[in-house]
Every structure is written in C-alpha cells, then in structure tokens.
C-alpha cells in the first residue's frame, strides 16, 4: 500500500450545482419499498444510491453489499429553505449589507484595510475571527449605506430560521435574493472566500440525499423493516415537498402555501439538527426524539468521540483482578478460559512449521483456534479437521495459537490517566477466573482488589510485541516520569512485613529463615544457626551503599544517626543492612529509596528482581510471624482513659471560658479577624490540641508493638490520626472547614437538643468519644454530616478533574519533543518551548525532578568514606 500524503484540507459549502453534479438520482417518491419489498425507483432506497440488501447490486457502480460505498442523490426543493447551520451567519450578512444596493456597509477604504488585515493573518497562519467579528459589529451599527445613501432597517433574527425586517417577515426566497446580490469583492471582508463560498448557498434550493449505506434499515425478528431516523426525516421532507408542489400547481391560496413552506422549513431544519432551540424536536412514533445529522456527530456518544477517538478492538479480554505476590511484577496471571479464546499468530516458516503443526493437533490448552491461508481465508480448527489442517499448512500460512506463558500482552486499567496505566506484562496462564497481578504494581494502575476489572490486549505483530517488550514492560516504568522516583514498590503488607523483619535486633532460627527466603532467588547463604532480620533482608540486596532516615524517624532535634534509639537511621553498606528499619521510605511505592538506588545503579532488570524478591520475602515474613488487629488492640488501660477524659474536660472548660469572654466582650480579636472568627479559630485550635494530646496519651499506652501503630509509623497503611480516632477521641467534625452550624439557622442551633445560640463544643459537632467507645446519637449525626461532605467532594472532584484532563489532552496532544530538544506543534511546526521544560531534562531520568543527584555522585566518587 502506498501511503498518500494529505497536504491540506479545505472546507467549502456545497453549491446547488455541486449537489446536482454529485447526485446519481433525483428522489421524488416518499415510498421506500414496493409490495414485494423491492426498492422503488426514485424512492429513498433507490438502487442507484447503493445497496444494503444482500443479493442486490448497486445500479451506479455494480458493487455488492460491502463493495459499494454508496452514492448521493438529491431532492429538488419546491421552495428555498434556510440551512439552520448558517442561520446566524445569514443574519449577520443581512445586517452587514445595504438593503437596497446590497453592498457592504463600509466605505471602500475601510473595507480594503480589513481585507488586507485578514489576508495577512491567513499568510501567517493565524486566526482572523476577531477581525471578521469587528466587521460584523461595525456594519451592523451603520445606519446609512455609504454607497447609495439608503437608510438601513435592522433585521431581527428569530431562532432558529426566521428573519424580520421591522414588521415585515422575510421569506427564505427574499433572503436568498438579497444574498445573491452581495458582490464578491465585499465577501472577503466578511471572512468568506468567494472562490469557494457564495452566501446564497446558505439557503437551500436542492437537498443532498445521503447514500443508503449511511442510513441502513434494520430487519426486526418479526420480519418487519425498521427504517433509520434519517430516512424517516427524508420521507417527511419529500412528502411535504410534493404536497407543496401539488398545491402550487393547483393554485392553492397563499396562506396554505405559506404554511406548507414553513412546515418544509421545519423538516429540513430538524433533518440537520433536531436539538435546535426554539422549535420542538421531531419525534418518532414512539415519542422518542429522532437522531438526525447533528446528533450523529455531537457529544460523547457521537461519531467523533465514540467511533473515531475510541474504537472497540478484537484480541482483548476483561475480568476482575486479584493479587498474587508469587508472580513477578512483569507478569500477569491469565485464566485458562481466556488463554484459550485469545490467540497469537504464528507466521509459519520452514523453521517453525513443525511447532505450528503440533499446536493444531493438540486438543487442549496450548492449541490453535484458526489457521489463515495466504489468500486471507480463515479456517476454524475443530476436532474433525485437525489432522487435515496440520497437513495442509505451509510456509506463508498463519496459525493462530492460544495465549501461552511468556507471551507479551498489554494490561490496562481505566481511567488511563498516565502512561503507566497501560503496561506490558508477560503471560502466566493460571486456573480460576481472575487476572492476577503482583500487588507492587497496584500504585501505577491505581488498582485495588475490591472488584476492580482490568483489560488485556494481545499485540498481533512481531513488531508490536517487540515494541511492547522494549518500551512498555512494567520494569521499564519502575521509575515514574512524573516525579523521577519509583512508582512501583511495596505497599501495605510488604512494608509491615519488612518492618517486622528488620526492626530492632530480632533473631530468627535457621528453619524460619529458610522459610522466609524460600520463594526468593537467593542462593548463597552463609551457614549459621540463627540470623538477625537485618541479615535476612541483606540477602536480597545487591551491592549498594545508602544512608537515610527511615519513615519511622521521629525527627529528633539532634540526629544520633547509627545510635538512634528508634532504629530509624538506615545504613546500608555494600549490600549489607547495618542498622535501621526497612519501611515505606526504603521500599514503598513513591518513596522507595532502595528501589531508586538499585534502578539507577544496576538498571531496571535488577530493580525488578529486587522488588520481586522483596515482595515475596515480605509476604512470607508477615504470614510466618502473624499480623492481626482486633478490638482489644485499641483497648487502653483505665488510667489512660481517665487521663484522656481529663484532657478533653480541660479543653471543654477552656472553650467555655472563651465563649464567656466573647459574650462579655472581653475577647481580644486577632489581627484581620472579626470577633466571631477569632472565637471560632480559638475554639477549633483548643479542641484540636485536646485531640492531639489524647492521641499522644493513647499511643503511649498502646506501645510500639501494636499492629495499628506499626502500620501507621512504618507507612504501611493509615496514620497516627486514624489510631487516635479509634482509641482516644474522634474530634471536631467539620463542613467547609468550619464547625457544624447548619440546620436551624433561624434559631441559631444545629439540632433541637441544644439551646439557641449554644456555641459549646457539643452543639457544634465535637465528638469526644472514640470509635472504640462508640458515638452518641448526636455525635453520630455530626459525624455523618462531616462524612457526607467528603463523599460529595470526591464525586465532584473526579468529574471536574476528568473534564479538565480531557481539555488538557486535546490541547497538548500533538506537541512533541524534537531531537534538538525543542517542543513543537506537529502540524504547523510552531515552537512552544525552545528547550523542553526549560532545562531539557527528562523527568524520568532525573533524580526526583532534579537534573543531577549531587549527593549520589559524591558518594560514588568519594566512596562511602565521607563523614
């Protein structure tokens, strides 16, 4: 196939001559089929317009169904009608030209200046809409024709297609006559090119009839024919057109003709757009509005967004996803049922013909579904023809074999917001009905396993497969181009598991350790009776040297480094974890400093190996040691409860004092705040402080061994605030960042349980209980109010950001970074940036957004000896 280059596209308006020229049939008969179900000549299903019924041949090109692309016909309208799409432009033109001499309402010199300006813009490839708009504005304001001196009467445009000159209504015929007389020279100033457009063409005298292939009829189970909406509309137009003709021939009264003319206008208008304001949409017999031309194209379900920007594909599958930490991050578990349905083509050569034969002969899983002959004919492989087909194949044939372990596939989760939403995985065929993926790749897809479904696509050519492997494999996306750090990494149990393994100086027996590292690819382990957790973690580390503060770091004023009492200072030397705890900062997605270091030092392959080992090790540790939480994990001793009660009581008393000070007028306002605002802020601060104090007391009594605390401090899941709310005190509920003061606003109270004007903590949504103790009914109500705001926020945010994203993608889609580092618009070659991002740095290859990681360079050159 020779690709043709399109140099330019120009949009013009069809002239009546053009419409007649491209027409193959004049349509006059409103009937479609005769009694035998055969298309009527001169009807809307005329055989010259193309064929949709199998067995018939097109009378224009002789093609069968599928071969004939269809051909346009035309309807000669009995009277001219306005084209809705141009109605507004017509109104502007009528107001912009003299009612007598039809010249533009501008002096020649002014006109020439505008035309010159427009031509300059065209040459510069810029938009000239603003100039044209100015011309229309000026001409409309002109009251006297500069050419013939005629006084101008403003023409009122009434949607959708009516024009009034004072009281007098203009018929489409009048309009057309006026437009005809506008001279070519004046059109340029209105932004119209007289070489391609004449304004009188905006008023239709002849209507193109689209080919039948654009409006195929469907045959219902009952054998009845159901016509397309467009055909229905065209039938209406022809019917009224014929009636108009007959009435005119018969010399019917003017009034009747005018009514028919208006009806014709209505049908032609709704034929183009059935959602124009000002007239009722044309309805189907059932009452459903018809889908006419504009509706076919418009909006999310229209031709552009539904059929052209997004298409349905073959060789794809969709099902629920579930986790499997035993898979590599590069792999995806595919159910056997899906693997048997999806196929990969084998292009048969002398070298693989024997293998291809074997696939055809096999009756179960890695078998073949189809063979394709060199002439493109597909033959289904069934038990009865296996042997025969296996004999028949020769080099040049294609055998479509089942999906197998090791095939590359693309895996995707919507919404596809960034490029990591579609990555290439290697297939692992597994039993059961879900796609399986390593939980470490959840962050890039933003997937969880509460019922998420994902899509799978099979690249069909060797080129596509190679490209997927090289560019799209998961391991190529461990480092994110968004922030220059790892986006694939440990989550939840991976982090808790490694925390349990490496925190402090725990010692594990040889047997335990062997269980832990069994699933990893660690081979050489020094023989010992017992190992510390840090030693075990060191087994999976490659030779790296690293030093950083862990997530559990308390942020002491003076860092004691290796002597940290929280074991929060991580030192890794030559692949040995010397001190510190492995947590989110070390191996987590988004943070993962160790992953970062390995990917940069040893490349993506080694980083993948580490993540695979790390997830397997962590899962085995956490299952081996056990990790649970229950209601008694959030129990605290009585004395702690008393202390918390004390703190809250004190805070409440303080708030009461504040309120009293406010009422007595003793409250000092903060700078720039009103008295009320000052009071609110002080109360919020006081109550916030109380909750924090309660949380501190609670965590002191919970200890570091508490599972919820471990998860919070290690960064595995949840925060200390969540723990506080479970154990000590839920705290102030808020709507729009303020205490809850809605409801009975006229009586200044939130619920009838309170006195009007009560400003106390309870009356404004302070929840003093914990989730463990349970909420009082009033507290529960406030909590629900605060919770509802969160839900509404997320719902609104997702829809808004989705639309924002759509607009941004549309604006940026054809920008490209060229080899010289400039960013250019692809079609026009316009330069957007002279250097990508102003510094020319690929963020994926940067260190967390910075061009160079000076610390790392220093470490590499000077060695671990520094400090």
């Amino acid at each position, binding site marked *: 196939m020779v690709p043709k280059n399109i140099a330019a596209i120009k949009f013009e308006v069809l002239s009546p001559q053009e419409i007649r020229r491209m027409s193959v049939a004049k349509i006059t008969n409103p009937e479609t089929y005769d009694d035998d179900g055969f298309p009527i000549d001169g009807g809307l299903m005329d055989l010259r317009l193309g064929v949709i019924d199998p067995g018939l041949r097109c009378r224009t090109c002789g093609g069968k169904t599928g071969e004939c692309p269809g051909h346009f016909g035309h309807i000669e309208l009995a009277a001219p009608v306005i084209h809705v799409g141009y109605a507004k432009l017509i109104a502007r033109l009528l107001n912009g030209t003299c009612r007598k001499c039809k010249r533009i309402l501008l002096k020649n010199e002014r006109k020439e200046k505008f035309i010159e300006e427009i031509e300059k813009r065209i040459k510069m490839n810029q938009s000239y809409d603003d100039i044209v708009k100015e011309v229309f504005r000026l001409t409309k304001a002109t009251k006297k024709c500069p050419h013939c001196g005629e006084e101008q009467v403003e023409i009122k445009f009434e949607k959708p297609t009516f024009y009034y000159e004072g009281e007098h209504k203009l018929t489409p015929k009048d309009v057309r006559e006026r437009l005809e007389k506008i001279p070519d020279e004046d059109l340029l100033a209105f932004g119209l090119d007289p070489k391609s457009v004449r304004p009188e063409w905006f008023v239709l005298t002849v209507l193109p009839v689209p080919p039948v292939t654009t409006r195929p009829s469907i045959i219902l189970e009952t054998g009845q024919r159901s016509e397309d909406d467009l055909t229905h509309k065209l039938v209406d137009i022809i019917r009224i057109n014929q009636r108009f003709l007959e009435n005119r021939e018969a010399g019917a009264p003017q009034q009747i003709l005018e009514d028919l003319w208006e009806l014709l206008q209505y049908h032609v208008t709704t034929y183009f757009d059935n959602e124009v304001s000002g007239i009722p949409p044309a309805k189907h017999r059932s009452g459903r509005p018809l889908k006419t031309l504009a509706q076919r194209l418009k909006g999310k379900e229209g031709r552009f967004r539904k059929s052209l920007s997004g298409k349905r594909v073959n060789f794809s599958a969709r099902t629920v996803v579930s986790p499997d930490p035993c898979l590599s991050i590069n792999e995806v578990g595919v159910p056997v049922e899906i693997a048997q349905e999806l196929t990969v083509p084998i292009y048969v050569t002398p070298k693989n013909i024997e293998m291809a034969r074997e696939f055809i002969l096999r009756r179960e899983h890695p078998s073949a579904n189809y063979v394709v002959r060199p002439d493109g004919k597909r033959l289904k492989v069934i038990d009865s023809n296996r042997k025969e087909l296996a004999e028949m194949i020769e080099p040049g044939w294609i055998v479509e074999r089942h999906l197998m372990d090791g095939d590359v596939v693309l895996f995707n989760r919507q919404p596809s917001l960034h490029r990591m939403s579609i990555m290439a995985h290697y297939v692992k065929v597994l039993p059961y009905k879900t796609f399986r993926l390593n939980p470490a790749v959840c962050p890039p897809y933003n997937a969880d396993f509460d019922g998420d479904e994902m899509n799978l696509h099979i690249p069909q050519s060797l080129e596509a497969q190679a490209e997927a492997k090289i560019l799209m494999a998961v391991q190529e996306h461990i480092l994110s181009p968004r922030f220059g750090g790892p986006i694939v990494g440990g989550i939840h149990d991976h982090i808790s598991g490694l925390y349990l393994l490496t925190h402090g100086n725990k010692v594990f027996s040889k047997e335990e350790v062997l269980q832990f590292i069994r699933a990893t690819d660690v081979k050489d382990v020094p023989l010992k009776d017992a190992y510390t957790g840090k030693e075990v973690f060191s087994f999976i580390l490659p030779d790296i040297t690293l030093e950083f503060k862990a997530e559990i770091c308390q942020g002491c004023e003076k860092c004691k480094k290796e002597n940290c009492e929280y074991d929060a200072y991580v030192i890794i030397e030559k692949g040995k974890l010397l001190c510190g705890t492995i947590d989110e900062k070390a191996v987590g997605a988004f943070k993962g400093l160790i992953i970062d270091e390995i990917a940069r030092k040893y490349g993506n392959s080694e980083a993948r190996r580490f993540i695979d080992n790390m997830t397997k090790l962590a899962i085995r540790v956490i299952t081996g040691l056990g990790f649970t939480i229950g209601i008694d994990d959030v129990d605290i001793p009585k004395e702690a409860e008393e202390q918390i009660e004390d703190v809250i009581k004190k805070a409440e008393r303080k708030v009461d004092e504040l309120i009293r000070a406010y009422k007595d007028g003793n409250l000092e306002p903060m700078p720039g705040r009103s008295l009320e605002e000052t009071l609110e802020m002080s109360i919020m601060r006081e109550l916030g402080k109380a909750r924090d104090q309660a949380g501190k007391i609670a965590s002191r009594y919970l200890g570091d061994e508490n599972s919820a605390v471990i998860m919070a401090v290690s960064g595995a899941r949840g925060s200390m605030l969540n723990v506080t709310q479970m154990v000590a005190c839920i705290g102030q509920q808020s709507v729009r960042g303020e205490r809850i003061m809605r409801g009975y606003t006229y009586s200044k109270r939130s619920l009838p349980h309170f006195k009007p004007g009560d400003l106390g903590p309870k009356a404004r949504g302070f929840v003093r209980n914990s989730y463990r103790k349970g909420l009082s009914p009033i507290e529960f109500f406030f909590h629900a109010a605060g919770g509802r705001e969160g839900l509404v926020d997320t719902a609104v945010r997702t829809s808004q950001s989705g639309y924002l994203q759509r607009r941004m993608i549309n604006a940026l889609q054809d920008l490209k970074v060229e080899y010289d580092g*400039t960013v250019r618009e692809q079609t026009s070659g*316009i*330069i957007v940036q*002279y250097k990508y991002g*102003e*510094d020319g740095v690929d963020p994926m290859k940067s260190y967390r957004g910075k061009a160079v990681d000076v610390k790392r360079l220093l470490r590499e050159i000077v060695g671990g000896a520094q400090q």
Partner: protein
Amino acid sequence: MKVRLQDHILVPKHEILSKDKAEELLKLLGITREQLPKIKTSDPIVKEIGAKPGDIVKITRKSLTAGESLFYRLVVD
C-alpha cells in the same frame, strides 16, 4: 518621570537580536520566521526597546527548573 518596564522584577530581559544572530537562530532551528512565537508591536516592552516588525526579540527569563531560560519571539503588528 518615565518608568522603565525592564526595571520591574517581574519583567524579564528583552533584547533585539542582531541580523546575523537572527539568521543563525533560524538556521539552527530549521524554521522560517513565521513559525516563531509572536509578540505584538503594541506590547509595552516592544515599544520600550524599540523593536520593529520582523525583528526577533530574545527574552531571558528566570526559570524554576533551569535557573535561566531563553525564549525568542517575532515582532508583528
């Protein structure tokens, strides 16, 4: 008293590119003049430095990522 726009901290440095430098730039980028981003003669800064239509203005901006970045705009009316 006339205020010089260039003295304002938010206005980056604008200067007219010499003929040779301009040709060099266009050759380096492999484009025609029209493909450059535009700036109008009515722009206050263009008036101040006295650039004429067809001139290329070199703008030295402060950049968060690169410290300093260069930008070129074609003067048009």
